[in-house]
């Protein structure tokens, strides 16, 4: 297939300072949980995008000093020579693909709690962070300012040594340079605070110094938030940012333009629930209008037409992606080859970001099960080794996310025949109706992508509208059976708070319902007042509440937790979700667990009330979002009633289960589950995941001896 000429503009090279990008695709700085401590995972993760056609790929935020330590969250680090060695691997691997490497030099100020280094951060003023409430910064005096600027210069030199082509002086999301620029953080009365010129001074000087140190060899990038949405107190486009662009444009080789502060950075890394693609474009275009240098920016770009239009209309020069580069590292190649329906589009769920927010784990991706696994499991997103046991037929029962992914990968690995069977008339499982919840329309891409891929696989057949009994599964003629029958929402109030059912909870009654019944089976609840009992912790309860409230019902959302949908804090959806629920008049009741449901009333007690006082809420209808349970009856019938021996007698050599029917989990994990089984279908025991590369330090005797010697030296002379 050929590239659509409309997209040619995306493949024109562009000069940034002393470097040239071979096309307009740029992987913006973003976290992956690997930092400098897991250099191989880091390098393979980034290099996969280079292989996929990206012209420039950046590290995540890269700490320039132990004073900027974001533990528990993982950043990259360039503190010393060992860090140089580790990150140089990333640079080398990127360069193999003619891809530029970028280091986003970062100093967090009071937002970095320094929980590992135990250093104390410096900042423009002494204020506790609005992000990390226990961390105060040292108010920097002139010497501190020189010291801070020197940290940037030394880190830039280390970046150059490591092989980085682009070096950032990163301010966005309210990190140090932007803290100086912003009245919200900068209360100084000396020449580094007050007027615009003063507030801009620190950043300008730092850029000048970094440029002087490495500017001949590296492109200088500046990342700035053009609006923090904090009104007068925050950084504002016209008052602060455009003048700043004018001020330092001659120093900067490429502008990286985004939005928001750190406390609500979901306004920048926009969830699809609230924002469409390209949200920041007006701000990016405003900078582009006055700058003479290339401008790049993110916007959850997935549509090549929109990307081409943005450049053609003079709003952006370079298309930067973070999440879409994770859901499909080969986005540029696929556009180049005209293989648009092979693009695995980002759905904007922000599950990747949630891992960084939680602090510590590597990223995962709902759409791309190989994200983060490039090195540690050697999973390439586009390449599959032929299965050693390909001479077998596989039956996958259930075409939800796990089943579809499993059938797809099995198909790509060349299994002789794969039959994917589902009781519904189309693929998707619960993902057929989840995207119909308010705002989740883009989540349908999980199903759409797999449908298209499965359709292309000649060795995979999808059989709809067919419900197989255990006997029919046994007699199906497959040598390998994979059960992927998903989960359902408990109909009896069983919940994780009490590990018990709730008196009166019964979704078979006309005035009670579970999400499956409402969305998948078309059950309706009459009456004006709806109470949603939510102990799920993620999107289901709030989405159902929003749905009913939008339809004009009076909704109460009750949870035993202290916060409704706590996981949505990690996906950056919480602030806007709360705004939405608040504007719809949803009454959120926290810390309450129903003790019984009666027709017309829900009786609940406060979870910390030792006397168990009951309060009554009137409700015409109740939605039970208490917890999910596996649909495991088919698997149990196969394993317990027919038994593995009985299956063997019918020619079934292996029985596996994946996804929610094993244990309910995130959609991303269901997809992962199906993917892993298919990747390891030819391992000695596919039911147990193979060990993965852990990238941990393993001590050897010589090293231990040396360290014990060092320790002894440190204590020499101690009493």
């Amino acid at each position, binding site marked *: 297939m050929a590239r*659509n000429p*409309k997209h040619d503009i995306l493949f024109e090279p562009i000069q940034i300072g002393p470097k040239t990008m071979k096309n307009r695709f740029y992987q913006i700085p973003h976290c992956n949980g690997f930092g400098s401590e897991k250099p191989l995972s880091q390098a393979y993760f980034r290099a996969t995008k280079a292989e996929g056609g990206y012209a420039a790929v950046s590290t995540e935020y890269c700490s320039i000093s132990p004073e900027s330590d974001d533990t528990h969250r993982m950043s990259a680090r360039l503190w010393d020579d060992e860090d140089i060695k580790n990150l140089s691997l990333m640079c080398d691997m990127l360069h193999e693909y003619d891809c530029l490497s970028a280091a986003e030099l970062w100093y967090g100020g009071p937002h970095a709690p320094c929980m590992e280094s135990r250093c104390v951060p410096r900042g423009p003023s002494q204020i506790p962070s609005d992000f990390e409430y226990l961390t105060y910064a040292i108010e920097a005096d002139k010497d501190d300012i020189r010291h801070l600027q020197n940290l940037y210069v030394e880190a830039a030199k280390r970046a150059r040594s490591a092989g980085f082509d682009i070096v950032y002086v990163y301010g966005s999301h309210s990190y140090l340079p932007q803290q100086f620029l912003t009245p919200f953080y900068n209360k100084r009365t000396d020449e580094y605070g007050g007027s615009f010129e003063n507030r801009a001074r620190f950043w300008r000087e730092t850029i000048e110094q970094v440029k002087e140190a490495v500017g001949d060899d590296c492109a200088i990038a500046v990342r700035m938030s053009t609006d923090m949405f904090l009104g007068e107190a925050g950084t504002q486009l016209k008052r602060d940012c455009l003048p700043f662009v004018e001020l330092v444009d001659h120093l900067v080789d490429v502008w990286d333009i985004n939005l928001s502060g750190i406390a609500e950075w979901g306004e920048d890394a926009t969830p699809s629930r609230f924002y*469409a693609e390209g949200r920041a474009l007006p701000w990016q275009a405003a900078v582009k209008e006055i700058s003479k240098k290339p401008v790049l920016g993110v916007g959850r770009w997935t549509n090549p*037409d929109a990307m081409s239009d943005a450049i053609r209309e003079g709003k952006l020069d370079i298309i930067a992606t973070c999440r879409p580069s994770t859901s499909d590292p080969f986005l540029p190649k696929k556009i180049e080859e005209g293989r*648009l*329906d092979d693009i695995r589009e980002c759905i904007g769920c922000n599950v990747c970001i949630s891992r960084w927010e939680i602090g510590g784990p590597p990223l995962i991706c709902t759409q791309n099960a190989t994200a983060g696994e490039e090195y540690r499991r050697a999973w390439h997103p586009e390449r599959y080794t032929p299965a050693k046991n390909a001479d077998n037929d596989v039956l996958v029962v259930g075409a939800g996310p796990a089943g579809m992914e499993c059938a797809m990968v099995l198909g790509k690995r060349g299994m002789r025949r794969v039959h994917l069977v589902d009781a519904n008339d189309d693929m998707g499982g619960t993902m057929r109706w989840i*995207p*119909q*919840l*308010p*705002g*989740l*329309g*883009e989540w*349908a*891409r999980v*199903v*759409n*992508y797999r*449908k*298209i891929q499965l359709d292309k696989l000649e060795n995979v057949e999808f059989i709809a509208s067919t419900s197989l009994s255990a006997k029919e599964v046994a007699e199906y003629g497959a040598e390998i059976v994979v059960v992927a029958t998903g989960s359902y929402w408990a109909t009896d109030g069983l919940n994780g708070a009490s590990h018990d059912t709730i008196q009166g909870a019964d979704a078979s009654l006309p005035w009670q319902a579970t999400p499956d019944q409402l969305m998948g089976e078309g059950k309706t609840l009459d009456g004006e007042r709806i109470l949603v009992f939510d102990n799920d912790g993620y999107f289901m309860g709030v989405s159902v509440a929003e749905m009913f409230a939008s339809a004009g019902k009076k909704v109460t959302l009750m949870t035993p937790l202290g916060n409704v949908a706590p996981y949505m804090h990690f996906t950056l959806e919480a602030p806007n979700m709360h705004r939405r629920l608040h504007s719809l008049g949803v009454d959120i009741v926290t810390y309450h667990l129903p003790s019984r449901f009666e027709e017309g009333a829900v009786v609940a007690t406060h979870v910390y009330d030792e006397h168990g006082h009951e309060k009554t809420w009137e409700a015409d209808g109740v939605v039970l979002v208490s917890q999910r349970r596996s649909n495991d009856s088919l698997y149990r019938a196969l394993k317990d009633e027919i038994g593995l021996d009985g299956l063997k007698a019918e020619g079934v050599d292996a029985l596996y289960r994946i996804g929610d029917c094993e244990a309910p989990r995130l959609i991303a994990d269901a997809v992962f589950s199906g993917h892993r089984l298919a990747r390891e279908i030819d391992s000695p025991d596919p039911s147990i995941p193979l060990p993965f590369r852990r990238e941990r330090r393993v001590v050897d005797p010589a090293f231990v001896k040396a360290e014990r010697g060092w320790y002894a030296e440190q204590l020499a002379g101690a009493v």
Partner: protein
Amino acid sequence: MSVVVVAEHLRGEVREVTHELVSAGESLGPVSVALIARDPTPLIAAVNVEGVSEIVTLAAGADEFESDTYEQALEALIAERKPRIVLVGFTVNAMGYASAVAARLGLGFASDVHQVSLEGDAVIATRSFYGGKVDAEVEFPGAETVILALRPTVWAPAEGVGSAGVSSLDLSLSPARARHVEFLEPAAASDVDITQADFLFSVGRGIGDADALPELEALATRMGGTLSVSRPVVDAGWMPSSRQVGQSGKTVKPKVYLALGISGAVQHLAGMKSSGTIIAVNTDPEAAIFGVAHYGAVADLFDVVEELEKLY
């Protein structure tokens, strides 16, 4: 080069495709229209349009279509008149008799033809293959008579009042072995199935937001169509995927596909480009949809919708 057009009628009305066949036949030679029915007389006026040289009535069989009757009648007419070209519509009726006649008499045959030309004495018919993605020129070496089933709505129907003479051909036919009993009206569909619609009123991201949809759906219904959408509308959560036209949605082939504010992404085109007549309205003159549309207008869809509302 004589042309016979076999008129198509249903419940006492001559179907529009008959007039399209006259149009097509006119450029090939003098057109005789064959009227096959138990009593053809009431249908004569309706087929007497401009371009018809002669109307031949073949009184036989039942009031409604029966395969054996049409086959025997047509075979008799061909034996009598030896036309060079016989034109029928590519319709359900024709599917029940035309190729049987061609096979039995060893005639040339092609169906779903959308272009016919003469090269000297040779008849060249153009039809599609492989899901409409390629076209082919078909020739009929050695065939004295060629039966062509023409694709409806390609030729404009002949109009006006003709002055054709009427003749008749007497027939004595064996009884029909497949006999019309009665008609049944189709059951109303309970669920919206866009693949069954004859006219799809399709909207894309150009509509801006969900608020416009109820009004657009109402207009679609008044126009006799069904509302369908492109992917971005489903992605945004404004409509369910059962309404989605495209590679990951449904493939549709309505008679008319009206695309408003749809740019024509490859995946969308894959789902609708075999539609009979495609009309596209888009503010972008470079929109890919114009590449597959039969009719296009560079205009704001809301301006056009506003005007359509006045007409319906």
